[in-house]
């Protein structure tokens, strides 16, 4: 059979080559498109050699680059730059090849576009008077069928070259062995990404492996079980990295079963025959790899399903233990040394969890660490030794042996430092980089904690601060949050209220961004961070949008708004809805991040958000300059708005520097000149291939800031001119009760482009409260993803309370109340009802009280009064300057110092309760939502009700 199929494949290849030669020869002087189908680069090179030898006509070769955008133009350009060395070429007409082979389509990034445009301009190809041989693999052929149907129909049956199945099987086996070797070599420190193995989807190796499998299947050959098991491992890893957990587990399990049984059989056989081969060792190695990966699988599962965290970690532990046992039996202490830390890490997670498992885990961790220590000492594996010391420090901390913990943490740091000093290069680079990214911060945290317990508070703060600097929230959010929590406690206890508050905010943001926190509180929702690289997610547009937005049933709104920005017809969008419905959140955490990563017509989108309207020209100029700066462009058409040369700061990207320069314009040029500059800049932006999207958030503010229609007219005229500039989009977002104000825009400025119909149905976009059903599913979505489970009865009661009489749930209220539930770990209906007669109100009040508390007890009263001063009797939120607030505090006879007021204001703003309206002249403060006014006024002691 072997010889037979090898020979028949050879015959078929020969026949295809003969046909190719004949077709090229017969098509001389005419255009003809010949498809050649070949899946393997190595084979293609062979065939091209043979063609060169066999073909009487010279075949020139054009290799497309991965950045090619067109086929026809690339060929044309190629023809112009080549000298085909043909005697018959006259001076006037360019020389032409006798035949042209085009290769490299499989590596073209924008293949669909290239094929699509080739299909459209197919008539142009007819002007090329020579045959073109197009080399394709099966994937390209498939895309050709879909994106260049007509062109494909111009070709006859593709000529097919292939390897014999035996050859394919041989190469598959060698790749599988290589994969296991690499993984054994790397150890258990992380899930080796496919990219490092050249196995990512789309890589040439990967594609050819897939082709080989298909070709083998079609040749009626089958994979032997061993190859099948290796393949299951590869597929398991793929599914695992895509977080398709069920599939991954199934593949891993199937693979493990094979290696285990094969090893058992081999063992039985060998002991029967009393021989000894290396077969068993090889099988056991692979079995060990699978045990490791099943352990890693459970670790990923623990992160994904936080409710099952402890049980999943327990499972992971079992697999790691089994894996190590296996290697110990095989006397492969080298592998035990490489794989043991996965177990230690998991034990630590279990130990920090709940009793009764915790104490047992601490004991086991201590034992495992001792084993690891002796193994790593024997091999002098310093990077792993440092981690062993880290675990010993954890154990010591758990036992309240502060002095011992301090010593181990110091040893860990010293070991890492020494390793770096001694071996600055070589193959350790990668593991040192990993240690820096994942472990240095951990060692510093351990040391800081010991120091704090030993009474060296300021030292501890310094250590934790460097721990924060050394660690990367992206790489290990759990560690990062641990560092921040520790730091915050220390700072607050020592009266550094402002610093403590900033750390707390940072912690909350990280928790929200990484899905540890279900609810965002009063502030607007921040864009979501990318997940841990060990659990890569596909980067689709949905992944960009903050989880809260996605989970909150607003994903579709983001998509619709995005489409409006991309459709030339929709110049203007007016978003309207009630206060606190999430307009700012959807813009900032949903639309803006999505816009930043989208292109339309190969144009980048530049979203410019303006949240307030005092000196709107300056604010807009500044926002445009900053937005462009962030993508490496310079706004140089704004002389009246950016009077100070800002190059130096732009270069360093320092926002602070930019702001400082903008605060004092040299001389105030007139409004007209500023508007003209803005328009000039927007026009110029077309040339930068941008679609500038001006987003006017909280646009109702504009009517407060400019109460006189005469003041408003310049903005309206600016708006009209914007709508006439290509590639400028405008979004106005405002509370629905101010919608009618927009009608005067039609009156004061002629908006011909939108048919003078600013409130037309094609322009308005409504955002409303959640229905109770939506709210329920939002809560479930949000809590499911974080480690925070709410009883069903509680969700129902909560939504009923939130919905109130009107039956709609205001998103901001949901976020505030939810955040309180989470902070106080209220997860049952009973606990909720124990809050009082009106639990919802209690929670909102608590949320306010928390912020007041964050200011520190010496400042609490000032904070309370300031909040009150930012409300008005009629339920609105007056804008007040710092000076006004200070004056009113004095009138209320509240003692305070300037630094105290500054601290209070900063914390109120930072908490998201109060908005700071940035001005070039002075800052204004305002409560963030009307919704909060009644809560603040309700609970205020009469002492400072002085304004009446």
């Amino acid at each position: 059979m072997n010889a037979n199929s090898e020979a028949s494949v050879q015959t078929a290849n020969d026949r295809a080559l003969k046909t190719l030669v004949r077709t090229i020869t017969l098509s001389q002087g005419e255009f003809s498109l010949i498809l050649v189908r070949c899946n393997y680069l190595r084979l293609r090179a062979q065939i091209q050699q043979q063609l060169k030898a066999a073909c009487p006509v010279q075949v020139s070769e054009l290799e497309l680059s991965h950045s090619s955008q067109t086929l026809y133009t690339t060929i044309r350009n190629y023809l112009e730059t080549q000298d085909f060395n043909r005697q018959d070429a006259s001076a006037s007409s360019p020389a032409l090849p006798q035949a042209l082979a085009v290769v490299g389509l499989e590596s073209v990034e924008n293949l669909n576009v290239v094929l699509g445009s080739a299909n459209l301009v197919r008539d142009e190809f007819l002007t090329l008077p020579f045959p073109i041989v197009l080399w394709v693999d099966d994937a390209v052929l498939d895309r050709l069928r879909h994106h260049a149907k007509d062109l494909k129909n111009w070709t006859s049956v593709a000529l097919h070259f292939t390897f014999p199945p035996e050859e394919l099987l041989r190469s598959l086996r060698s790749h599988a062995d290589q994969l296991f070797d690499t993984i054994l070599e790397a150890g258990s420190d992380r899930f080796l990404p496919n990219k490092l193995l050249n196995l990512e989807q789309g890589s040439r190796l990967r594609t050819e492996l897939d082709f080989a499998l298909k070709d083998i299947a079609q040749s009626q050959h089958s994979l032997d079980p061993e190859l099948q098991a290796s393949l299951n491992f590869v597929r398991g890893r793929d599914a695992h990295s895509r977080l398709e957990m069920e599939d991954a587990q199934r593949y891993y399990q199937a693979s493990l079963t094979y290696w285990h049984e094969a090893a058992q059989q081999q063992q039985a056989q060998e002991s029967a025959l009393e021989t000894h081969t290396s077969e068993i060792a090889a099988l056991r190695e692979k079995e060990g790899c699978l045990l490791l990966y099943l352990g890693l699988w459970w670790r990923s599962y623990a992160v994904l399903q936080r409710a099952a965290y402890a049980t999943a970690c327990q499972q992971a532990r079992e697999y790691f233990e089994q894996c190590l046992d296996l290697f110990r039996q095989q006397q492969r202490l080298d592998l035990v040394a490489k794989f043991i830390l996965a177990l230690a890490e998991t034990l630590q997670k279990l130990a920090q969890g709940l009793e009764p498992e915790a104490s047992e885990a601490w004991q086991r961790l201590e034992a495992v660490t001792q084993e690891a220590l002796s193994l790593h000492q024997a091999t002098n594996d310093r990077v792993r030794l440092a981690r062993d010391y880290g675990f010993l420090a954890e154990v010591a901390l758990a036992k309240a042996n502060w002095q011992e913990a301090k010593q181990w943490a110091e040893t860990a740091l010293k070991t890492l430092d020494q390793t770096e000093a001694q071996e600055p290069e070589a193959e350790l680079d990668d593991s040192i980089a990993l240690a820096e990214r994942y472990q240095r911060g951990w060692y510093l945290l351990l040391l800081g904690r010991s120091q704090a317990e030993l009474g060296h508070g300021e030292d501890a703060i310094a250590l934790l601060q460097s721990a924060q600097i050394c660690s990367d929230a992206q790489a290990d959010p759990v560690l990062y949050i641990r560092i921040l929590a520790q730091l915050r406690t220390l700072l607050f206890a020592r009266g550094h209220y402002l610093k403590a508050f900033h750390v707390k905010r940072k912690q909350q943001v990280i928790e929200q961004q990484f899905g540890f926190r279900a609810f965002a509180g009063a502030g607007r929702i921040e864009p979501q961070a990318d997940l841990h690289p060990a659990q890569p997610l596909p980067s689709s547009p949905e992944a960009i949008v903050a989880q809260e937005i996605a989970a909150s049933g607003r994903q579709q709104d983001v998509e619709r708004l995005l489409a409006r920005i991309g459709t030339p017809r929709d110049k203007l969008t007016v978003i309207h809805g009630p206060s606190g419905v999430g307009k700012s959140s959807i813009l900032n955490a949903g639309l803006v991040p999505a816009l930043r990563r989208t292109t339309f017509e190969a144009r980048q989108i530049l979203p410019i958000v303006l949240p307030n309207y005092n000196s709107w020209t300056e604010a807009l100029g500044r926002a445009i300059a900053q937005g462009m700066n962030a993508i490496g462009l310079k706004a140089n058409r704004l002389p009246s708005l950016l009077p100070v040369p800002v190059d130096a700061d732009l270069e360093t990207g320092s926002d602070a520097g930019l702001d400082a320069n903008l605060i004092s314009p040299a001389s105030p040029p007139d409004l007209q000149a500023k508007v003209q500059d803005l328009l000039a800049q927007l026009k110029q932006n077309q040339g930068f291939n941008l679609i500038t999207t001006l987003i006017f958030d909280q646009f109702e503010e504009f009517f407060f800031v400019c109460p006189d229609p005469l003041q408003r007219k310049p903005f309206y005229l600016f708006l009209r001119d914007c709508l006439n500039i290509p590639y400028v989009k405008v979004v106005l977002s405002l509370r629905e009760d101010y919608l009618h104000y927009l009608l005067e825009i039609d009156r004061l400025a002629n908006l011909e482009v939108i048919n003078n119909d600013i409130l037309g149905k094609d322009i308005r976009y409504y955002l409303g409260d959640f229905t109770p059903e939506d709210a329920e599913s939002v809560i479930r979505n949000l809590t499911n993803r974080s480690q925070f489970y709410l009883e069903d009865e509680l969700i129902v009661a909560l939504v009923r309370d939130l919905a109130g009489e009107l039956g709609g749930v205001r998103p901001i209220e949901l976020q505030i109340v939810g955040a309180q539930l989470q902070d106080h770990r209220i997860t049952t209906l009973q606990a909720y009802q124990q809050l009082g007669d009106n639990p919802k109100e209690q929670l909102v009040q608590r949320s306010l009280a928390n912020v007041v508390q964050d200011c520190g007890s010496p400042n609490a009263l000032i904070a309370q009064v300031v909040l009150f001063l930012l409300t008005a009797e009629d339920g609105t939120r007056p804008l007040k300057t710092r000076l006004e607030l200070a004056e009113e505090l004095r009138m209320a006879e509240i003692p305070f110092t300037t630094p105290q007021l500054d601290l209070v204001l900063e914390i109120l703003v930072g908490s998201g309760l109060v908005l700071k309206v940035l001005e070039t002249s002075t800052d204004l403060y305002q409560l963030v939502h009307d919704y909060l006014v009644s809560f603040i006024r309700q609970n205020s002691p009469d002492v400072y009700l002085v304004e009446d």
Partner: protein
Amino acid sequence: MKLDLPRFFKACNPNKTLAVGNEEDRQYYIDFSTVRGGNIVRDLGRTIARLSPDEPTCQLFTGHIGCGKSTELLCLQADLESKGFHVVYFQSSQDLDMADVDITDIFMAIAHQVNRSLESIQIKVKPSYFTNLFREIIDILQTPVDISEVGFSTGIATLTARTKDSPRLRSQLRQYLEPRANGILDAINRELLEPANQVLQARGQQGLVVLVDNLDRVDNLLKPNGRTQPEYLFVDRGEQLKRLQCHIVYTIPLSLVFSNDLGRMSLRFGLKPKVLPMVPVQTRQHKDFEPGITQLREMVMARAFPQADVKQRQTLVTAVFDQSETLNRLCRVSGGHVRNLLRLLYGCLQREDPPIQRAVLEEVIREDRDELMGPIAEEEWELLLQAAQRQSISGDQDYQTLLQSLLLFEYRDQNGRWFGINPILAESERFKAWQQGER
């Protein structure tokens, strides 16, 4: 008579499209209308001339790739002109970049072509809206376009010519035109079509008819709103396409006929698209359909011996094929898809000199089958087998892929339309096994 192999080889190249204006090509031309069921073109013409000569109508026309839509539209033009209509036929691919079309591009192309045609019969209109529009466009487009002191006709001609080759310019222009689509539509009606219709009627002619060919070539690319370009143009914005005040026929991509949006689109336009079918080579009962096969045989032989007459050609079959039955086999297995037939024929000529041996033809068929079957997914097989059994398809999106990938063919007989699996696939083991199971 001797076979001229190089000429025959070139005549069979599947990339060759027949230009009826070319004398050599005309010899290759075969009129298939007698064997295609139903007279689609007659229906289109009847709707305009008989049912609604005075009220504007808007109709949609489509068919498989390379099945002769243009030829049929040209017939329609001749027919309507003989009845007194002024017909503007144009290939929209001349004015538009099919990868990137928006509604105002179509309007401007129509305005351009109608105006050009009217000028040729000395009807001059002065659309003031466009004069203003052009003035503003000059301001907008940063690259100088010299349309300052020119009238409507040269202005619009320059604009369409310039923007077709420059995606950049087109995109810029669109930024300005798209938000004003309704204004432009009204202006075309008010300042171009209505005056033209009045003058035509004053001259005792029937009204204006516009035949927009090649719009079926618009690319299937996704628009930013997640809709494909055909869906966006003909479904989402079909309302606007319909509002032109003259008789109009748009060719549309066949895919729309099989999309879930067919209902919505038909509602927008008030009628279903008319579809031109394939040349039938077998009947619903899987019997040979002799007239179709005869026509296809004639087509092959015309390419081999263009000079010879029909009778002579019959005697010359064995100069091209080892036996007459080999030619029959080729015709049957092509499924009546002309280009498919040429692809197979060309494949044979690539391998050996004529006369083409049956074995060589079978080899080509086998390889084509392998290539065709490679990417068919399991779900697609399920759909295919269902379609083959029922000879009809539902409006499912998936069927569209089957038709576009030429796995399934559409035919028409006196009982309406029916669907058959590509005969090459029908010979696969997979299909045969299924048939066994069915019986």
